[in-house]
């Protein structure tokens, strides 16, 4: 049955409409999680607010568990769901650059848009920077093309490369996340900064 867009051969306009609606849901969920505040996001790296870890892993796990159940019930064809392609060098180098961007800007591209929409001026600067970054990337792409395409591994799944069944890997990941939630709550107590967190409420 699903993915619906390929099963029912969605016309272009319907694809665009669903993209917009999914975007609304995405923006709504991010804003409700409190991700429209850069100090809340940055709190994760100093331990005083670990909302990011909680929301991020909860979301990934809910989607992961949900998609696997749907696949087992024959409602979702996982072969037709996109799996990110693995370019080893680009993933690591890109990830490190993003890490620096995260701590400097205090947003990620999705949360930046969200914060901009509720009137955060620093988020507007971040989004403007994002456009500049995208422009810089398209202009410098010929220079970094070699690195961007180096060590291509294809759409590898982590459980396959470890030789585990998807269900077993999910269990391990959930166990790790549960431990992380627990540590996160301890950290929030240990590194508490009431002067900041009270400000954010």
């Amino acid at each position: 049955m699903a993915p619906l867009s390929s099963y029912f051969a969605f016309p272009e306009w319907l694809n665009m409409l669903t993209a917009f609606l999914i975007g609304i849901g995405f923006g709504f969920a991010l804003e409700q999680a409190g991700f429209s505040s850069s100090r809340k996001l940055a709190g994760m790296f100093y331990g005083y607010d670990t909302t990011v870890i909680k929301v991020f892993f909860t979301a990934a796990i809910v989607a992961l568990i949900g998609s696997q159940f749907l696949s087992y019930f024959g409602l979702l064809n996982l072969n037709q769901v996109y799996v990110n392609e693995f370019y080893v060098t680009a993933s690591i180098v890109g990830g490190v650059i993003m890490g620096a961007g995260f701590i400097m800007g205090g947003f990620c591209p999705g949360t930046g848009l969200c914060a901009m929409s509720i009137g955060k001026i620093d988020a507007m600067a971040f989004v403007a920077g994002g456009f500049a970054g995208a422009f810089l990337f398209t202009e410098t792409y010929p220079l970094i093309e070699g690195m961007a395409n180096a060590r291509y591994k294809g759409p590898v799944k982590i459980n396959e490369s470890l030789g585990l069944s998807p269900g077993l890997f999910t269990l391990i990941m959930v166990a790790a996340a549960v431990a992380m939630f627990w540590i996160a709550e301890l950290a929030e107590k240990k590194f508490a900064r009431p002067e900041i967190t009270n400000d954010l409420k």
Partner: protein
Amino acid sequence: MKFIKQYWPVLPLFLLAVILVLIRTFSQKNFRYDAVKWAEPSAIGSNILTEDQIATLSGEILLISLGNEAAIDRQFQGNTMNINPESILEKTNLMRIRKNNGPVILYSGDNSVSARVWMVLSEMGMKNIYILKKNPA
């Protein structure tokens, strides 16, 4: 008890998931999970028998003639049934096939019908089903 008291909101959701999974896994009326696995004998050809190979099978053999031709070899030792291919999924027929303790052999005047019926039954999770291949005339 204390555990149940604390975690009661979790239990209904968990039980619902367990029940749905059990229904999906053991449903007799529907196709089973993983089409590739159930089609595998057809890919390696292990589901096809010639007349000579029948003698080597062990267990209670059930030979099903699909269609009206009484084309069953008189010398055949074992149970035989004549089922119209359209009605093979009727409850009584399915029960008979599932209960048979040994190989079930499909035979039709035309290999085509047995092959199609084989794939349907196999995807419903029935193992030990074979096609008797008609020798070319």
